[in-house]
């Protein structure tokens, strides 16, 4: 089902939770809504579910406005962070509950529930109560319950955050598998960029109640629209070098370092800028390549195939990966150059991308 949100806005009293949010989710896609805590991503989910009413704006399911509809009339499935299984019902009872409400005959609803339990691999636990299940099992049951009535839209609210690290990885793949098998349009809310990157067809990145960017995971990473997007994605976080352009050179803030940066020539001279460089986009250049600037080594972490170096560039800290066979000693100076890919120039005041 195609889901459109147009100018969706939610205020709680004077607090702005979501502001002028316009996004379209394509049919059959798994879309992550990603952002730091308090960015309004859960509110968007609750708006989609009909749990909180919108202050302004519209929600359309396949072109039909559902903005005012209560949750029970929206035909959606929802999995909460804490799963919210009915504690007095067995697994089978939980999964068939939505069909029981629809007054589906017992034999038929149990058949559907069993099929759904088999899909999420809990068909051997049908007569247990939720308290007798592990977190991962409860999660699977919650997904089965959300899917059993064949919803047009599946909403998952931070479904992995209550699980331990290993289970999280496993359930992530499970959710992807189940989504691919059922092809149900899915919204996955998370604050974990790695989770979102690995699972999604599209990512909607939010901050402070506003949409930052909506795109495919890789494009979001490689073509961030603003500084927030570049900062939020990637481990280790992207490096920041504040400064301004002057005569075709980037002057690092503090004035100690300047280096030719022809690519930045289009930026207005004198305006505060942020040169943002991903850790894998800086490297030690070949002698004939010419260095952009020199960095003094602070510490080196060798982690098998990768070596992560911490540097100081004109008073600003900088992290980048080095070649595995290169282990400079702390205190030494080494030349550093940037690759074009993964190097961005942002406006220092608005955070808008200039390059």
């Amino acid at each position, binding site marked *: 089902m195609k889901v459109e949100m147009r100018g969706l806005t939610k205020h709680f009293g004077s607090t702005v939770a979501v502001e002028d949010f316009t996004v379209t989710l394509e049919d059959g896609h798994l879309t992550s809504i990603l952002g730091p805590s308090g960015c309004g991503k859960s509110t968007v989910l609750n708006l989609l579910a009909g*749990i909180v009413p919108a202050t302004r704006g519209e929600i359309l399911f396949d072109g039909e406005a559902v903005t005012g509809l209560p949750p*029970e009339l929206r035909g959606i*499935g*929802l999995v909460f962070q804490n799963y*919210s299984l*009915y504690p*007095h019902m067995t697994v089978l009872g939980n999964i068939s*509950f939505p069909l029981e409400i629809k007054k589906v005959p017992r034999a038929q609803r149990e058949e559907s529930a069993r099929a759904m339990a088999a899909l999420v691999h809990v068909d051997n636990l049908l007569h247990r109560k939720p308290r007798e299940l592990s977190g991962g099992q409860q999660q699977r049951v919650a997904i089965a319950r959300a899917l059993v009535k064949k919803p047009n839209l599946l909403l998952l609210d931070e479904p992995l955050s209550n699980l331990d690290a290993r289970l999280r990885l496993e359930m992530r793949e499970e959710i992807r598998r189940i989504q691919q098998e059922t092809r149900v349009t899915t919204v996955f809310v998370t604050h974990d960029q790695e989770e979102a990157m690995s699972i999604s067809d599209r990512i909607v990145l939010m901050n402070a109640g506003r949409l930052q960017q909506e795109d495919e995971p890789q494009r979001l990473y490689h073509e961030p629209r603003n500084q927030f997007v570049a900062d939020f994605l990637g481990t280790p976080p992207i490096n920041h070098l504040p400064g301004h352009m002057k005569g075709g050179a980037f002057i690092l803030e503090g004035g100690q370092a300047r280096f030719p940066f022809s690519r930045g020539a289009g930026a207005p001279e004198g305006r505060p800028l942020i040169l943002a460089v991903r850790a894998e986009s800086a490297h030690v250049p070949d002698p004939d390549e010419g260095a952009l600037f020199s960095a003094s080594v602070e510490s080196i972490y060798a982690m098998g195939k990768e070596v992560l170096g911490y540097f100081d560039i004109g008073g600003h800290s900088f992290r980048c990966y080095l070649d595995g066979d290169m282990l400079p000693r702390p205190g030494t100076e080494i030349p550093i150059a940037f690759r074009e890919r993964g190097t961005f120039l942002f406006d220092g005041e608005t955070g808008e991308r200039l390059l």
Partner: protein
Amino acid sequence: MTAKESAGLCAEIARANRLRALLARGATYFFLALGAVVMLFPFFWMFTSAFKTPQEVATFPPRWLPAAPRFENFATVFEKAPFGIYFLNSALITAASVAGTGLVTILAAFAFSRLKFPGRNLLFTLLLSLMMIPFEMLVITNYETIAAWRLIDNRLSLFIPFLGSIFYTYILRNFFLSIPDGLYWSARVDGAGNWTYLWKVMVPIARPALTTIVLLNAITSWNSFMWPMLVINSTANRTLPLGLYVFMTEGGINFELLMAASTVVVLPIILLFLIARKQIVGGVARGGMKG
């Protein structure tokens, strides 16, 4: 001190500790047993006296047990007064009260815990403050209402005034409030409206609290005496406690018959208590108040 001496000393200390623990436990059990005897003695006396002859009841020093149990006492009681009707009335009214008050309590507790309407908390605070008013004062207004509705000497008047119970509503509301919001929204998304959610999810989860309420209500209703005495006049409408009172004042004091009648009155409650002991004790402990 040699090792041997030290070991001996340790053994002695251990022995002393054991002795002290034993004494302490002995004293605890002694007082508990004393309390139990004091509490149980009247029941014992009632039960045994119900089987005695008039002479045995009156002898001094008292006889603990009848020489031969006289079951005729019970037959006599049922002959002298319509205890069968009283029993039926009590059972009907208790059942009606449990069902009616239970329903009202569930709906009120749901409204005060789950529905959002302006003035909800103020209204609930007001209701709670009404708990301060003693029962005896409410008797007057209740009586006037019942009289105005022409329900005096009608069995309906025995449970209608008590359909709304603030205390039970309070217990159940607190239980409902402890059920997480997530369940409510899950149920809504699963397609359930408020009504379905209440009966399919909330009520089954609240079964421990509801059991407590049902039991407390049943006991209160079964034992209720003052209110029935005020509003009931005719024999056909009397409940057991009322019937017992009338039996005592009208039939003269025949202790063995009185005790047999009393046994009939309290036996169902004692049985109920024995069956549901855990829930009653747990419920009162959870509520943290008197029933």
